[in-house]
């Protein structure tokens, strides 16, 4: 290969921090990586964009030794390497924040931060808690986090845990004398705007002495924080763009290989009938452990967003409406009938659907097939009498795989092997297969979805709404809430404090909402 001979390793000044050539990785039925090339220069922030399943995580995992590529080469600072493990990668100065959170919940934040490279924190196998705390504090200070290092990780909020992850990966700095390469796989998908800002400050600080690879499905973020963006499609590199002057639409075009629509909230599809429909969902004085006296009405065909900061109680309201969180008082009716909230069964039977935020734990059953996951709730749809009819199931599942363009080798593939976005589509499809859904509760339904998939989910939501489904949406971002909702309820400290009308054409700005939220 000529690239090897022309590799500029002789001139250290221009040597690349990381270079990937022709990386190939097969999974049964999938070519996750199909000859990917990638260059990460010294002191740059490289964005990595691509649809769900494009191979981003696989590529990055190869860079930290978690995935053994079938072919191809990885060069670190002009030196060809073989990465066998995370430790190996760390020794070469490469560290990663994983897409799915990877902290040990029952250890302290400090232990998680130093895990695997305790250094002076452990001497001869004995813990030195003070040192460990100090080491962790140093890392937390770097990112300006005020988390108590000795707090148990499972007592922290999602966003705080994400900060711990970032603090943890920054320990790479202590490990090598070389400028490190730090990989962030969708670090912002669970953060709020203020936290995202902190993170970006940190990423910019990192650029001073390190290289960063940054993955996000929010293309505006990518353009904001990165110097250059490399785009993957179907396991292949399709090009690079400098971010200066680039538009999200340009990136999107490269990602999908054709022109995408600009109106990805599909506002045009929104149909508002003017006849005053009877409200479908009526919630009166609902109280639970973390919320109190919540009133809420959702009409058939309406999308109602609930916004609020962490701890506002909106997730619990959502779970309560599905019978997955105990309520202390209040009344909930669906189309005038009292909803049985003593467990999830009652809600499901009444035509309520719920898509949880923690997809991996609560949304899907990893080792089961796409088909089984899709049919888990609406068993009747694949049965004749008490019997499952494989033919019926196959047709139904394949239809929905196609309708939602779920990228899976086969309906029998384990869902755990799909990319995050495709997993989410299967979870959504679960509520749609029977066509009897009346109320859909969506908790962060687009978390981790690429822009195309997200757009499809939005269109799906619109079409469901148009066919009469009432939707409660806990959006991933304020923009999404505004873009999708007909009305927005603001929650604060467990109470619904404000209702903002949000009709097509008369949308509030994010700032308007933020004012109400704090």
């Amino acid at each position: 290969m000529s690239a090897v001979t022309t590799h500029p390793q002789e001139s250290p000044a221009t040597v690349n921090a990381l270079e990937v050539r022709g990386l190939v990785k097969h999974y049964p039925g999938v070519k996750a990586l199909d000859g990917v090339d990638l260059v990460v220069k010294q002191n740059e922030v490289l964005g990595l964009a691509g649809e769900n399943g494009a191979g981003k995580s696989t590529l990055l995992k190869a860079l930290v030794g978690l995935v053994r590529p079938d072919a191809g080469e990885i060069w670190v600072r002009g030196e060809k390497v073989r990465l066998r493990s995370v430790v190996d990668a760390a020794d070469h100065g490469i560290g990663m924040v994983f897409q799915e959170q990877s902290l040990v919940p029952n250890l302290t934040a400090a232990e998680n931060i130093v895990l695997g490279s305790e250094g002076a924190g452990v001497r001869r196998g004995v813990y030195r808690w003070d040192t460990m705390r100090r080491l962790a504090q140093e890392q937390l200070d770097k990112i300006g986090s005020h988390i108590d290092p000795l707090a148990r990780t499972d007592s922290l909020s999602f966003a705080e845990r994400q900060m711990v992850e970032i603090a943890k990966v920054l320990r790479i700095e202590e490990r090598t004398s070389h400028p490190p390469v730090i990989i962030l796989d969708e670090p912002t998908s669970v953060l709020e705007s203020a936290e995202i800002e902190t993170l970006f400050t940190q990423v910019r600080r990192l650029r001073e002495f390190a290289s960063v690879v940054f993955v996000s499905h929010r293309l505006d973020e990518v353009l904001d924080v990165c110097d250059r963006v490399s785009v993957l499609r179907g396991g292949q590199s399709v090009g690079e763009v400098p971010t200066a002057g680039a538009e999200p639409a340009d990136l999107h075009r490269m990602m999908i290989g054709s022109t995408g629509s600009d109106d990805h909230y599909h506002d045009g599809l929104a149909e508002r009938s003017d006849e005053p429909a009877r409200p479908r969902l009526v919630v009166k004085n609902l109280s639970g452990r973390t919320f109190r006296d919540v009133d809420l009405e959702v009409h058939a065909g309406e999308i109602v967003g609930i916004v609020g900061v962490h701890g506002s109680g909106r997730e619990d309201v959502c779970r309560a409406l599905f019978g997955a969180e105990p309520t202390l008082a209040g009344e909930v009716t669906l189309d005038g009938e009292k909803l049985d909230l003593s467990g999830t069964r009652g809600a499901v039977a009444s035509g309520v659907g719920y898509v949880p935020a923690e997809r991996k734990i609560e949304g899907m059953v990893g080792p089961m097939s796409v088909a089984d996951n899709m049919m888990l709730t609406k068993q009747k749809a694949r049965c004749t009498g008490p019997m499952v009819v494989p033919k019926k199931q196959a047709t139904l599942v394949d239809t929905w795989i196609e309708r939602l363009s779920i990228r899976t080798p086969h309906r029998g593939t384990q869902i755990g092997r799909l990319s995050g976005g495709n997993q989410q589509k299967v979870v959504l499809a679960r509520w749609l297969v029977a066509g009897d859904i009346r109320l859909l509760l969506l908790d962060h339904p687009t978390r981790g979805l690429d822009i195309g998939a997200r757009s499809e989910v939005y269109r799906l939501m619109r079409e469901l709404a148009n066919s009469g489904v009432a939707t409660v949406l806990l959006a991933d971002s304020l923009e999404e809430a505004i873009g999708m909702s007909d009305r927005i309820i603001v929650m604060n400290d467990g109470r619904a404090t404000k209702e903002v009308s949000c009709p097509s054409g008369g949308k509030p700005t994010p700032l308007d909402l933020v004012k109400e939220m704090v």
Partner: protein
Amino acid sequence: MSTPVIADPVANPAAEPAVVTGAPTAAQRVTSFMPVIALVALLAALTIADPDFLTQRSLTAAVRTSAPLVVLAAGATLVVLCGGIDLSIAALCSLSTVFFAMWLPDLGGLTILAVVAAAGAIGAVQGIAHVVLRIPSFVVTLGGMSIFSAIALVISDAGPIRVIDRDATAWLNLYVAGYVPMSFFVAVLVVAVVSLVIKLTPLESFVRATGYSESAARLAGTPVDAVKVAAFTVSGACAGLAAVMLASRNFSGSPTMADNLLLPAVAAIVVGGTAITGGHGSLWRSLTGALVVTLLRVGLPIVGVPSAWEQILYGAIIVAAVALTLDRSKVLIIK
């Protein structure tokens, strides 16, 4: 309410041709046959140790012997598939032998049904305690184990009760087609019926989803609690049926009769390759596992392995058998 209309998706430019099917690969097929391979290997080894072991009479005796264990293990497999464990099966089986012996004079031919129903009901009570009180099944059934033993001791006045009327269970001692002991036939029938019911209905997804990820199953609206209670009920009923087999074989019921079958039954489940963590496995695997365990229990001493070495070999072989049968692609973390 009609199915929402969804437009055709935009053409999928990077879609790779889907050549893959959901059918198991050759390697997966082999792993699902591993329990049988382990069984055959063990049989071969025993035959080499003592050529007389491989006779029709000897094999018939072995499968006849295994029947209660097969039934016990098959029932408990359901609980294990749901992610729990049932430690009470053996004690419940002992208690059921006492029931059987006590009720037989009054109920006659109906006793079998009555015992199976009673044991099923007791299993259901444990299942309900487990899902309502939210205590781990390990604890509930550990408690159940000692409670059932105590009840059995008290009602039997701490002694065996003779079964005088052997007619009610005489059919269990017949042979199907001249060679297959009826009790084993019944055991296989139970495995087949339960397996089929599960396989052909949504129960399979319910059970596996509950075992792999209970919280996801619950949030998908799966009747997790009902499935668990049902699993415990079947497990209890199977303990009752095993008790009928044991009592008919021993011509008596006794408060400690089956107590020692707990670990062999659980070993049978695991040797069959069912994941003790739930989700993955099957009743067929447990059937094979029970045969392996039975062969080890009776085969080693019969071919002349001395007592101390018998235990050492037993230990080594069950570990080796599990190493062979466990399908690790379905069980990511081995605890």
